[in-house]
């Protein structure tokens, strides 16, 4: 069950939320997405455009609210060469893996449709996405295993960033950030007042 738009914003103003939690979420809410890519440090403008279209297919957001930006956080991480602690040995270091993976989308689009990925229609894009995920995209200069692992890593990172956003959380029906009072009604079908 989704909560109405604005639920988390309202909750953050109450004393149900500890200062550390409020600060983390408020910063994320306040951050203005940079759709022009002006502050990008790692992705080239072409890569950013490709990624924008790709994320629109992977994570189709409700159109009637501000859009959650998952591209800038990835850009920031790669520009600063930050890791999440591991990578598949068959892939190169994350910055190279992302370049290689995005290039593979373009190569496959060219080979199969004779156009860049960004000029394909949605069904064509979805078809290529499925092939990259299965490791079956012809024209892409990745091994099948690399293609599968890159796609899995990319999807996991984008989804994590998306779900970390308070707007996505209220749509999931999640209000666990109301962390100050105890949770006593924790069994099946039991809800606290602040969860209703």
């Amino acid at each position, binding site marked *: *069950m*989704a909560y109405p738009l604005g639920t988390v914003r309202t909750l953050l103003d109450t004393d149900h939320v*500890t*200062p*550390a*939690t409020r*600060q*983390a*979420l408020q910063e*994320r809410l306040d951050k203005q997405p940079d759709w022009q890519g002006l502050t990008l440090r790692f992705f080239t403008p072409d890569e950013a455009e490709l990624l924008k279209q790709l994320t629109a*297919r*992977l*994570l*189709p957001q409700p159109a009637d609210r501000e859009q959650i930006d998952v591209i800038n956080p990835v850009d920031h991480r790669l520009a600063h*060469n*930050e*890791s*999440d*602690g*591991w*990578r*598949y*040995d*068959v892939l190169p*270091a*994350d910055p190279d893996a992302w370049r290689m993976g995005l290039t593979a989308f373009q190569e496959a689009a060219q080979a199969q449709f004779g156009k860049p990925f960004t000029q394909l229609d949605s069904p064509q894009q*979805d078809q290529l*996405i499925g092939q990259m*995920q299965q490791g079956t995209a012809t024209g892409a200069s990745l091994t099948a295993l690399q293609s599968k692992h890159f796609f*899995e890593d990319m*999807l*996991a990172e984008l*989804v*994590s*960033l*998306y*779900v*970390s956003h308070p707007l*996505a*959380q209220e*749509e*999931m*029906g*999640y209000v*666990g*950030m109301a*962390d100050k*009072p*105890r*949770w*006593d009604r*924790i*069994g*099946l*079908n*039991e*809800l606290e007042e602040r*969860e209703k």
Partner: protein
Amino acid sequence: MTTYSTNDTVDAVVIGTGAGGAPLLARLAMAGLRVVALEAGAEKDPKTEYATDERAQEFLFWNDERLSAGENPLAFGSNNSGTGVGGSTLHYTAYTPRAQPDDMQMRTEFGVAADWPMDYHTDIEPYYDELEHFLGISGPSDYPWGPKRKRNYPLPPLPLNGAAQLMQRGCAELGIRTSPAANAALSGRYYQEGVGWREACTNRGFCQAGCSIGAKASMDVTFIPLARAHGAEVRANAFVTTFDRDTQGRITAVVYVQDGQTYRQKCRNVFLCAGAVETPRLLLINELANSSGQVGRNVMAHPGLQIWGEFDEDVRPYKGIPGGLISEDTHRPFAGGSADFAGGYLLQSIGVMPVTYMKQLARGRGLWGPALMEAMSRYNHVAGINILGDGLPYDHNYLELSDELDARGLPKPRVYHTDGDNEKKMNAHAEVIMRNIWSAAGAKNVWAFPRAAHIIGTCRMGHSPDEAVVNANGQSFDIPNLYISDNSTFPSSLSVNPALTIMALALRTADRFLKSGE
């Protein structure tokens, strides 16, 4: 607070402050030794600096890159190891079952792995008892499995959340016994030596992202304050890189980097407690303590297959201690003829935080587009169960240094992990049982997430210097003033979560060291 100069020759330097380091640090300090702990991670105040937010808490994880190889590559970072004063206990789920005696006799019973070079009843059990009372473990008064305990758990079990109730329902239907689990989180306020009163768990369900109220018995609110109260010094952000040695090969100082500066702490003894990846890595980088050739070998991980399902009920998987319920009826499933593998496993109910769940769903089911958004919208109806099984060591599973350097200029570790026949059979056996439980409990859209948890065994203990890196006291066969105390010394992986046993071994190592009078 006591501090030492790097020129003071302290009695012991402890490297790493997790489950293996902190209890030992406290024990040595309480015996009046002059001890310094060097911890690569930071020290934060959970009460003011921990957010109930997974992304904001990523600083708890060991995020230096490791290379995962083999057919079942291990996920590190948030799935595996932590950093900070308190180590991985800062983000452990606090599930603290005891091992059973036969867990330590896998070679005798099945001819696999290695027996533990010690006796369960005299060497381990007394420490379990001590730890359960010191940490304030909440658990049931009659636990159905394993040897009868000397004393009850000091606190009653934590309340069952939705996932635990569902597992109870499904298991009851199938005649599988269950029990509220033992958790190192307080079901009531608890007075603790060296610390004072710790507050009860507020059922916030965020143990894996750190406990902001001190209810969870992580090392930063238990053994570390105790150690400090007895004069231990803990230095945070201190990354150990190498050692100075004398002509006999004994270590004379530990070399570490803190805020870009290199320091050498003089010492008589070293306790290496950096976890089952960093401990062998440090030894391999420095070509130390490896005359057995076993440093980095015997990588084991616990088969940790998870089964997820969606229920009609409102589950709200973010509430309550995540691992509320346990069954050890599958501890030796071959005994009833239903299994054909060595060892066994436990069953655990699991609550889950939203980002962790969706990340696993992305990896495990590969959903994207409208199907992904659909699955996301059903988060509140999700519950899981998983196993924790005995994973065996194989020649093909090991840790080595790669030739890629990290930001510190040190070689990144590469870890090979491929399930053997035993793990495959165990997972297959468990998948059937868990699917049956979930279907009896009313689950829909059930899916399996294959996974392995914890890394174990990379500096094995044993009787002989030909086969092991350390002896039963944790002492290196090659360098007499070097000891290891962490998950790397386990000769077999056990069919239970490791932290309680790591702490028990840590206390034992400290006691043996003190007795030897070194």
